[in-house]
């Protein structure tokens, strides 16, 4: 007969089983969840004028000083199903909120979704009498009380973007991915119109001197209401040696506003600030519709990949074909009855590269890229000037780039590299039935050849550095001068005053470019890290004229460092100074030596003095000065001489900014914490474009833009962080 097992027996059995369990492999099984919610409030201290720079991307409404802050972080990992969900949300109560969702099954599929908002506020404040500013039908009403007596208008653009993506690993070799994004952009930005009468095409538009205003500039905000949608789809395939993917990219731009229709009537200010009626001719021009960006779309197919030719040599390649079209209806009638452009630009591209390490000390790489952009927009005589019809212009081009590089590891301490590169841009023949405006000469082709050399050295286990030099030279085909009508023809007479006194585009002119760069990396101890870099470069331009851009230069020195004082305290910082300059001249006018010096430094720290307290922050300082030093060209006339003497030329433009950012986070218990953020930003920015010596630049209706020179803002935010169960 079987007796029931007693408790003591059960306990011993259990002990045995427990003993067994100790030596058996553990079963890993748990879902891992992390979720935190943060909620708080922030306060900004500073007037509207003080917040011009601070609010550029802050997303804070200009007239509000208090903002709610809400954020969420969620992560769920399920080990048994190998799935992982992550959700992140920040600034959820503001206009720059971001939400991201990633949901994936490792090795199988991944789904993503995101939303983001971005607000851009213009630095300047508009004071205007405009009615319906920012709309497609702004009405110009001159401020009879003078500049500054109008209403405030904020130039602001808001972007809202939604994206979804899906990736599926079809097999160990094949993967499919598709991403869709759509973004709405709304608001208004700095824009406007102007006209000067009389013009070459309308001698009568000036009106009567002393009775009419014959010229005007008007600030009319560009009304923005558009959508841009993009799709990226890709099928990737991997074999043992080959990686290949086929992709499609589509871009669709739609603008709800095809044009702006200004309504300009009544009086306008002349340049000396007297209100007169606009001349009928001038008003006719100012009331013309202003075409806004048309709808357009682009599609691209590509084949991209790489192939291991051998275990030491790999090839990369990409071939692509794209077509961009624009066939939006014209705003207003065209002279010849066409209702749309029928714009089409097809671009074919091929890139092929090879890298090889034939022997351990030697690495080689080479690549060639060819891009053929074919503008096949119909060429039609849309315009007529002085009885001569002229057409739109095709902008086709073919671009070839080639690069060759070889590196040799001399020994464990020295590595040298030599390289050469080449670029040829063939801009195709100028559309003979089109007209050149305000250009001395053009060029069909430019080609540039460059060489580089670099030496890297490891001085010790803790110190390494590199020095590199490069030099390139650009030349081009014959110059082609404007025919003062249709088309261009070769420049043959280089003594022609129009050539001698002309300006040749720096993107086409002969150029000598030289650059040297030094870099060092030092880790004196495992806690210290210091990087130093210095570079100096010059561009020298050469053309048939001494005018235009002659040369440009830049240099930069910077030091970055970090120091781990202890496992509780880390420090970091940087210091950098750089200079950019160029020399430029115009005939019968200025010879300008432009110089911009930018110096900045920053220090930061991250500390965890106790297990509950976390601190961090940084202080940064920027000092940027732009100087526009002018002397006079030998051909300068009396007006130029008198202008420079009376005005003293152009004042320096200074931008200085000091920013202090601090945060502290204190854990109240295992689940909750309080975080305090503090930011103080002090700036000086005296851009004279919009005012000088207290006198604002004033548009013809009295509109002005202003920007406070000295700005000071503080922000403090308190956030409660709670870890959800």
């Amino acid at each position, binding site marked *: 007969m079987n007796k029931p097992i007693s408790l003591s027996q059960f306990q011993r*059995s259990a*002990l*045995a089983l427990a*003993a067994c369990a*100790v*030596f058996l492999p553990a079963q890993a099984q748990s879902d*891992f969840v992390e979720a935190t919610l943060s909620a708080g409030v922030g306060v900004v201290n500073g007037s509207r004028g003080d917040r011009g720079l601070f609010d550029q991307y802050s997303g804070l409404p200009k007239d509000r000083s208090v903002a709610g802050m809400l954020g969420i972080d969620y*992560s769920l990992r399920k*080990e048994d199903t*190998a799935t992982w969900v992550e959700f992140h949300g920040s600034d959820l109560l503001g206009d720059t909120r971001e939400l991201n969702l990633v949901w994936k099954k490792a090795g199988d599929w991944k789904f993503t979704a995101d939303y983001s908002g971005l607000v851009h506020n213009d630095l300047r404040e508009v004071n205007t009498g405009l009615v319906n500013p920012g709309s497609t039908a702004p009405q110009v009403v001159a401020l009879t009380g003078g500049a500054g007596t109008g209403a405030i208008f904020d130039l602001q653009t808001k972007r809202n973007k939604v994206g979804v993506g899906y990736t599926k690993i079809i097999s160990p070799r094949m993967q499919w991915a598709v991403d869709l994004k759509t973004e709405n952009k709304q608001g208004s930005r700095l824009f406007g*119109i*102007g006209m000067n*009468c009389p013009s070459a095409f309308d001698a009568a538009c000036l009106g009567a001197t002393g009775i009419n205003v014959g*010229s*005007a*500039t008007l600030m009319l905000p560009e009304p923005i209401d558009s959508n841009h949608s993009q799709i990226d789809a890709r099928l990737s395939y*991997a074999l043992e040696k080959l990686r290949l993917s086929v992709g499609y990219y589509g871009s669709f*731009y739609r603008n709800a506003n095809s044009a702006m229709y200004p309504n300009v009537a009544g009086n306008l200010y002349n*340049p*000396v*600030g007297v209100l007169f009626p606009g001349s009928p001719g001038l008003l006719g021009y100012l009331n*013309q*519709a*202003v075409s806004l*960006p048309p709808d357009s779309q*682009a599609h691209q197919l590509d084949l*991209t990949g*790489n192939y291991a030719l051998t275990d030491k040599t790999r090839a*990369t390649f990409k071939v692509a074909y794209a077509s*961009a079209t624009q066939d939006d209806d*014209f705003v207003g009638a065209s002279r010849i009855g*066409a209702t749309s*452009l029928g*714009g089409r630009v097809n671009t074919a591209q091929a890139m092929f*590269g090879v*890298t090889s390490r034939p022997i351990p000390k030697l690495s080689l790489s080479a690549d060639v890229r060819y891009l053929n952009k074919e*503008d096949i927009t119909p060429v039609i005589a849309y*315009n007529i000037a002085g009885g001569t019809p002229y057409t739109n212009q095709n902008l086709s081009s073919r671009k070839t780039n080639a690069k060759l590089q070889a*590196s040799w*590891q001399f020994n464990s301490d020295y590595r040298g590299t030599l390289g050469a590169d080449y670029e040829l841009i063939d*801009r195709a023949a100028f559309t003979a039935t089109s007209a050149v405006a305000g250009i001395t000469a053009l060029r069909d082709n430019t080609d540039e050849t460059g060489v580089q050399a670099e030496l*890297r050295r490891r001085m010790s*286990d803790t110190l390494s550095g590199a020095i590199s030099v490069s030099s390139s030279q650009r030349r081009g085909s014959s110059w082609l001068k404007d025919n003062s009508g249709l088309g261009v023809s070769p420049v043959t007479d280089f003594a022609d005053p129009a050539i001698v006194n*002309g*300006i040749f585009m720096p993107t086409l002119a002969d150029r000598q470019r030289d650059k040297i760069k030094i870099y060092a*990396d030092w*880790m004196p101890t495992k806690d210290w*890290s210091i990087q130093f*870099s210095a570079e100096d470069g010059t561009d020298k331009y050469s053309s048939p004229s001494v005018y235009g851009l002659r040369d440009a230069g830049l240099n*930069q020195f910077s030091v*970055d460092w970090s120091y781990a004082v202890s496992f509780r305290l880390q420090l970091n910082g940087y210091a*950098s100074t750089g200079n950019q300059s160029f020399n430029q001249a115009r005939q019968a006018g200025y010879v300008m030596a432009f110089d911009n010096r930018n110096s900045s430094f920053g220090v930061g720290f991250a500390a965890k003095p106790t297990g509950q307290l976390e601190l961090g922050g940084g202080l940064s300082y920027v000092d940027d000065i732009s100087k526009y030093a002018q002397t*006079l060209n030998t051909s300068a006339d*009396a*007006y130029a001489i008198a202008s420079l003497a*009376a*005005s003293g030329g*152009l004042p320096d*433009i200074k*931008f200085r900014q000091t920013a202090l950012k601090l945060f502290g986070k204190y854990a109240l218990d295992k689940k909750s914490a309080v975080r305090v953020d503090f930011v103080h930003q002090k700036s000086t920015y005296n851009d004279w474009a919009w005012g000088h010596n207290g006198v604002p630049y004033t548009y013809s209706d009295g509109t002005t833009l202003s920007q406070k020179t000295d700005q000071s803002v503080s922000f403090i935010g308190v956030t409660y962080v709670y870890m959800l169960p």
Partner: protein
Amino acid sequence: MLIKKALVFVSVCLFGALGVAWAEEPQPQGAAFCVTCHDSEDLTDMSRSAHGFVADKRAPDCISCHGPSKDHAYAPSGVSPLPKVDVSFGKQFGKLSTNEAHTRSQACQSCHDKDHKQALWSGSQHDAANVTCDTCHQTHVNKDKVMTKAGQTEVCYGCHAEQRSQLSKPSHHPIPEGKMACSDCHNTHGSAGPKLMARDSINDTCYTCHAEKRGPFLQQHAPVAENCASCHNAHGSVVAGMLTARPPVLCQQCHTPHVTGVVGALGGQRGVFGPAAAGQSVPQITNITNGKNVLNMWQGRSCMNCHTQVHGSNSPSITNPLMR
């Protein structure tokens, strides 16, 4: 009863013996052996990272990246210095790694080269400059700094200090604010475009956010269609619109000026210069002075006060270029 007791005793002895036998086994296999020395006090927590997600069968272990490293793992005790692992990571040429850049990158590429975004890594600017995966990426952490917008920028500044200076200027993309990252415009892992552009050209990259500039337009502005960088410095500038130079100076690098105001002067403003009489040679703005004056030339939007459609226009009905 006795049999049951015997069974328990035998079980305990058997498994206990086996346990002792296992304890005497000198090395656990594979990566399990690594953690006998490199435990949680030695390495930062990466359990919540993609590499630490053990349910993912593709997740690597120590040996996947660092190699078998037998000399390091089974070095006799007391040997100093300890032989390095087969593949170590750290700074270029730095104390922490003596492995070639290619070797270090290959450890990562052995898994990640199937990612189409890295298809053009080989021979790319970063690869050619010996920038390795571990130069920018942190693996033994839960949150890789370079995978967040704000953190990524700090990593890039380590080599690209010039761009840090440019981004500190007042007109800039919202990168210092953490709303954009370098990787929004650059594919740091290799690209068919110049300067590691995310798309095949600078313009195509700009059009991903600024599609309104794509056109083509009826009235074209050739340098716009050729290269946005002809006029803009996308990293930042003291000039509004991130222009490389202030108008009219920028425009006069290509165009012959057709206005007065031949020197940069903020003259002609009301209250600065008085009205002129005929024949006077002092700078003057009068009611017969046209709109192409020194004021409109050097202030406001300069040339764009009138030529506002500088990126191109689809208007067919105007003879004056880029104005409507």
